[in-house]
């Protein structure tokens, strides 16, 4: 009796496994599905406004702008329905905007951090303020997006109406080089950044991806596929894996000028924390960062370990500041299966309390 029941079950299971295998090997998962409109463009950058789902009177008055890193696509913020930070925030009644950097081409190799911080972000903010009709706004930056947001907040934030700043896994402090694996990898004696840029112009996506994956080589090159193999009959797990894999393998190059500055001024010089960083002649003084600050640190982050973000709290001029430690890795903290019950509600409630 048991055998006659298990045979069709086994066939069904094998069929599901086969379908899932075909899906992950031949297609890209549909990601970034939340409805949005492009409201502004400059070069490769696009400012999107997510279509609100709540009427204007039920929405928070202060709009929220999201900024992600330069070397990966911002779709991680809107991974897939049911597991999307963007969808979550729109449902919570935010007038939500996303500054997507696009993919730099060879013509963008000269772009520096100054271009992003002083040309792109202020213009996108101006457009967002025009569309939303609000003079103040909140900003949420993740990874290098958090670094750019910090620079912007220090240089322009106060004058341009930045009210709340949320930083997620922000790589800002490079003091403890032994703790930061990427700092070891990019030490001057081993890594000639000028030669790399001379060869490629921009920092190629493949090299960035390789560097990040080599921080945990077995987990990244083998472990992920083992996890897929173990769950091949579970379509829900496979869909989640597929979405993440689609995003991970869609890295983009980083503009040469910005990459050089990132390595020389930040990884090697630690200029922001030392107080010697200048952006287009302007000294970046963290004391000028006066917006309300939420600094989210992922405790198991191997790309931006906690030591890179925590010292910021003593340096900024914000009166209202909070350091939030959450379990999880660099990406998992916001896009992992537990994020919707862990990080998101905490971040949302902090912003909500300061958005009306």
């Amino acid at each position: 009796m048991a055998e006659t029941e298990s045979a069709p079950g086994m066939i069904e299971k094998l069929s599901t496994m086969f379908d899932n295998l075909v899906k992950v090997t031949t297609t890209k998962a549909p990601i970034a599905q939340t409805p949005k409109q492009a409201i502004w463009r400059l070069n490769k950058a696009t400012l999107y406004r997510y279509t609100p789902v709540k009427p204007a009177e039920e929405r928070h008055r202060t709009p929220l702008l999201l900024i992600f890193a330069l070397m990966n696509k911002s779709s991680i913020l809107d991974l897939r329905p049911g597991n999307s930070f963007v969808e979550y925030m729109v449902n919570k009644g935010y007038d939500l905007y996303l500054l997507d950097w696009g993919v730099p081409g060879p013509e963008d190799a000269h772009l520096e951090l100054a271009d992003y911080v002083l040309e792109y972000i202020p213009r996108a903010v101006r457009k967002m303020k025009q569309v939303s009709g609000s003079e103040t706004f909140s900003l949420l930056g993740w990874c290098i997006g958090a670094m750019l947001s910090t620079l912007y907040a220090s240089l322009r934030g106060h004058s341009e109406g930045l009210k709340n700043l949320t930083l997620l896994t922000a790589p800002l402090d490079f003091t403890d080089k032994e703790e930061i694996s990427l700092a070891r990898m990019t030490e001057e004696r081993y890594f000639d950044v000028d030669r790399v840029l001379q060869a490629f112009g921009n920092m190629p996506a493949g090299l960035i991806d390789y560097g990040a994956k080599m921080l945990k080589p077995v987990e990244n090159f083998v472990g992920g596929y083992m996890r897929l193999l173990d769950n091949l009959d579970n379509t829900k797990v496979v869909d989640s894996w597929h979405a993440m894999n689609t995003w991970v393998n869609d890295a983009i190059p980083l503009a040469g000028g910005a990459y050089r500055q990132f390595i020389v001024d930040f990884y090697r010089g630690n200029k922001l924390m030392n107080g010697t960083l200048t952006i287009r002649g302007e000294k970046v003084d963290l004391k000028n960062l006066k917006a309300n600050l939420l600094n989210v640190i992922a405790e198991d982050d191997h790309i931006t370990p906690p030591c890179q973000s925590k010292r910021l709290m003593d340096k900024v001029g914000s009166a209202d500041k909070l350091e939030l430690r959450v379990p999880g890795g660099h990406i998992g903290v916001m896009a992992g299966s537990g994020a919707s019950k862990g990080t998101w509600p905490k971040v949302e409630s902090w912003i909500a309390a300061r958005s009306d």
Partner: protein
Amino acid sequence: MADKGFDPMKLMRDARDTGMDAWAKLMLRLTGSHQYQRMQGFISKPTLLAIAMFRKASDSTMGGVLGNLNMPSREEVLQISQRLTHIEMALDDLAAGLDQLRRSAGAGAGAAASKPQRSPSRDVPTETRPVSAKDA
């Protein structure tokens, strides 16, 4: 009943996971070491030099060929693209400035609406043109 708790697949998976854990730790120690970074640097230097030399040679050859064909070189196309971005920025600033003017004129008109109407003059109708969807 006795073999209900026995799952050979689980045993194999556990053994594999244990092996992978050990392998991961070993690799982490290896790739995190200064010796490994030194080796990476040693290997990458000649590779990068070769790529840069090839790129320079191909740029100069192609530049000559394209020049003879009266076509812009790669460098010139890149420069045009950069100039377009600068123009885009200037236009963006102009559009924002115009929008600002329109708003202040609108606010002024709103304030004027509560006052007695003046007779139309030449400088008034500048804000009367319909705003297209593109402007918005």
